[in-house]
Every structure is written in structure tokens, then in C-alpha cells.
């Protein structure tokens, strides 16, 4: 029993990291209608900013705050100077551009900081607390808590604020949004900037565990995309819950289903997605698109 709970809690913690990245992807999708494959790469870049700053002797929390500001600016600039050129054209082209951006960022990070694994300081202590006979790391709890807060903030942003409504309006129909006086360009930059900040949070949370490399979040991105599809592209709460399910199932399957083991556990979320999408094409929490012609 103790082992089971331990696996669930660990799964929750890794699931939270997938969830953070998934939230960033949902944010960009809600604000621009695009899936940004470079979200993980941009997040890793932010983690490198933290790493460089702490190596200069800055306290971790200060370095993280600076990196978040850097991410907002970087995300906004990527939108303004790169994505803007492709947003009015074929959406497929824009998505391929984000894949190119991922490759570019990974390459530049490797060139600047090598592909070696770098030790990354942890925001939360590695101590464990005992709870009902199960020992849980403070890091797992902290990671999960941060993601829950981010998820609630994002849900509140989309559902409860004028800015959230404006971001969604711009994604759905930029021209109509402009006719109502929305500054489309600025709102797109805001969406990308906020998403990049979320990505930075995800990267900082996971880097101590995975150690920092340019491709650190490549796997996490795959899981995050799985969570986005599973949870439904329109629901921040949905994608985080989906990310948790994926994290937990992956852990449990690796231990309890003999033929899966650690080598095959990557397949678990995809089998799950396959089954879910057969039954609910809009995802577990997504809204069904009803279009009347």
C-alpha cells in the first residue's frame, strides 16, 4: 500500500510538470489557435537563464523571477518578429515554423552551453515528510502546489477576466476582434508572453530532477501534448487533470503491469489517448464544437 501511494504521489509530481507545459500550450492555442511545439524549447532556454544567473551568485528565487520576466519578453518577441509573419497564412505552416524554432533553440542552447547535463538548484528542499505512513518529498508537494495555483489562475483568466475574453476573441477571429477595438497584435504578444512564463515555471520545477540539457523537455513535451489532447484544448483544468492521470498511470503501469516496465511506459498515455478519443473526440473536458451550416 505504501508503495502504491508513493507511486501515485510521484506520478502527480511528474504529471504536474507535464501539466505546466500543457497549460502553456493551451494558453497559446487559446490566444492564437496554434499549437506551439517550441514551448518546451523556449522553457529550457528560460531554465538556462536561471542557471547562468545562479552561477553568477544570484539567489535562486531572484534568478527565477528574472527568468520569468525574460520569458515574457522573449515569448512576446517571438510572436512579434517570427510568428506574426505566418499567422495570417496557412496554420500548418505556422505549426511547422514552431517545430523549426524548437530545433533552432535546442541547437543554440547546445552551442552556448554544451549538451552536457548541468546540475540545477532545486526550489524545494529534498526532505521528505511522512504522511499516513508514506514518505513524500517536499519537492513533489511543492511542484504539485505550484501547478494547481497556475491552473486556477489560468482558468480564472479565461473565464473571469476581460483580458481572457479578449485573448479568446482574437484567436477565434482576429478581424472581428479588431472591429470591436481589440489591439490584435498586442494581445497576441501578451498570450505568447504569458505562455512562455508558464513554460519557464515548468522548466525550473523539473530541471533539478532531470538535470539541465538542451533537450530536457523533449519527452515532457510529448506527454504535455498527450495531456492537451486528452484534457481537451479548451480547458486548463482538464489538461492538468489529464497530465496527472498520465503521470500516475505511467508510474503504476511501469511497476504493476509486468510486460510494460520502464521501457514501454512511454506508450501508456498514447494508448489512453487512443481509447479516449474513440469515445470522446473533444477530449475529457473539452467543449464539443457545434457548427451549424
Amino acid at each position, binding site marked *: 500500500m505504501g508503495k502504491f501511494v508513493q507511486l501515485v504521489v510521484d506520478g502527480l509530481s511528474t504529471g504536474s510538470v507535464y501539466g505546466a507545459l500543457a497549460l502553456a500550450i493551451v494558453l497559446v492555442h487559446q490566444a492564437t489557435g496554434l499549437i506551439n511545439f517550441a514551448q518546451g524549447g523556449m522553457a529550457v532556454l528560460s531554465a538556462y537563464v536561471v542557471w547562468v544567473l545562479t552561477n553568477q551568485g544570484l539567489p535562486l528565487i531572484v534568478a527565477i523571477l528574472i527568468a520569468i520576466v525574460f520569458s515574457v519578453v522573449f515569448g512576446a518577441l517571438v510572436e512579434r518578429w517570427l510568428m506574426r509573419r505566418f499567422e495570417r497564412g496557412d496554420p500548418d505552416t505556422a505549426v511547422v515554423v514552431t517545430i523549426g524554432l524548437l530545433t533552432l533553440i535546442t541547437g543554440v542552447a547546445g552551442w552556448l552551453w554544451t549538451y552536457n547535463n548541468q546540475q540545477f538548484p532545486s526550489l524545494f528542499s529534498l526532505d521528505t515528510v511522512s504522511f499516513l505512513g508514506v514518505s513524500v518529498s517536499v519537492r513533489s508537494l511543492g511542484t504539485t502546489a505550484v501547478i494547481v495555483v497556475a491552473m486556477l489562475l489560468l482558468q480564472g483568466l479565461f473565464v473571469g477576466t476581460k483580458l481572457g475574453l479578449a485573448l479568446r476573441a482574437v484567436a477565434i*477571429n482576429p478581424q472581428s476582434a*479588431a472591429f470591436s*477595438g481589440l489591439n490584435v497584435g498586442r494581445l497576441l504578444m501578451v498570450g505568447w508572453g504569458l505562455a512562455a512564463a508558464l513554460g519557464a515555471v515548468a522548466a525550473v520545477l523539473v530541471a533539478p530532477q532531470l538535470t539541465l540539457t538542451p533537450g530536457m523537455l523533449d519527452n515532457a513535451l510529448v506527454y504535455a501534448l498527450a495531456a492537451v489532447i486528452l484534457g481537451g484544448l479548451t480547458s486548463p483544468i482538464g489538461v492538468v487533470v489529464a497530465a496527472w492521470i498520465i503521470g500516475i498511470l505511467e508510474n503504476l503501469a511501469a511497476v504493476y503491469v509486468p510486460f510494460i516496465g520502464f521501457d514501454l511506459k512511454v506508450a501508456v498515455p498514447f494508448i489512453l489517448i487512443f481509447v479516449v478519443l474513440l469515445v470522446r473526440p473533444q477530449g475529457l473536458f473539452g467543449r464539443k464544437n457545434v457548427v451549424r451550416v
Partner: protein
Amino acid sequence: MTLLELEGVTASYGPVQVLDGVSLTVPEQGAVGILGANGAGKTTTLRAISGTVRAGGRITFDGKDIRGLRPDQVAALGIAHVPEGRGTLGDLTVRDNLRVGAYLRKDRKGVEEDIDYCLDLFPNLKERITSNASALSGGEQQMLAVGRAIMSKPRLMLLDEASLGLAPSTAKNVYDAIRRLRVESGIAMVVVEQNANLAFTLVDSATVLETGRNALTGTSAELKGMDEIRRAYLGG
């Protein structure tokens, strides 16, 4: 007092010149129609005003030169464009569509009152207030598009083919409501319409465009009396 004035406005899509010197004068609280065949430049004239197509010539609103402004800047001055094809925000509810229309306003109470006014003007929308716009019928979407424009409290509304694709009775309902809006709000209007009969129920005067130029301009009564207008646009 003139609210909107176009003088010698030109516009082209790539090498194709669509507007070749269009003029138009809309008085404060007036309603002017733009008639003409397909491809005459009616929609492009509206797009030139709202800043969605680059235009030459002179476009002044309330005495200010607005040519070259971005669409959101034009909207902020009090010009609401109801585009051809309605442009409702499909994934948002009817209420959220109306709230987006009021994006630039700060008076929360006034916004709620105006939502109520839109629902009173278009009672069909009342039952659909929590539906997504994409689930509405064509007529309801057109009503929502006009409602969204009302929400910005404009001084001038640009209406593009509000009857397009609607059953005749629905089109008449939409125009009846717009006429009531005109009387009650005093919003000035530029009305692009294929169905000239419908347009003349709303506008005081109109201009007929032919290949990007004004071919004829006059009051509704004058134009309705002309044989060539009757033959070309009024069906008999």
C-alpha cells in the same frame, strides 16, 4: 453637420484596382446606402473606411483624417463595422460576443444595460444567450453581429449585406430592428446592400457604384423614381 466624408478614395488588391475615386458623405445621424453589382467596390469601400484595406484619397471622420489607421484604432473612434459574413465569434457564447463588442468601454453598468437593449431589439437572441455563436441560425448570427456593433456605442455603423443568405422574412426582421435602432439611437449608418428594396427602407440617400466609381447619387426618393435603378436593382 458631416460625420463621415470620403473623397476620391482608391484601393486595390494587388494589381487589381477596385476603387477608382469613390466619394461619399454621411451626415450626423444619417443613413447612406451603397448599391451596385457584384465587384463594383461596395464592400471594399467599407473596408477602406474601417482600415482593413489600404486606401488612397481622403477619408475623414468627425473632421479627423482616419485613412491609414488600424482597424482597432478606427473602431476606437466610434466606427463599428459589421462585416459581410457576420464575423461572429463562433466558440464564444452570445453574451460573450456582446461583451467583446463592449471591450473598449469602462462603464460596466451601461454595458449591462446595452446587453439588455440588444436582447430587446433581437428577442431571438434572448433564448440563445448562453449558446455558442456557431450554433445560431444565419439570421440569429446576423442579429448578433449587429448587436456586437451596438455594444461598442458607435457613432457610425458600417453594415455589409445584412440580408445575405437570409430568408426574405428573416431579412425583413433584421432590417426592421436596424431601422428601430436607427430611430432610437441616432447612430449614423453606411449600408451596403444587394437588395435595394430593403436598403431603401432604411437609408435617406444612396450612391450607386459601377467599377469602383460613383455612377449615381441621390436621395432614396429620387433614386427609386429612376427607371434604370428600377430595372437594375429593384426588379421591375
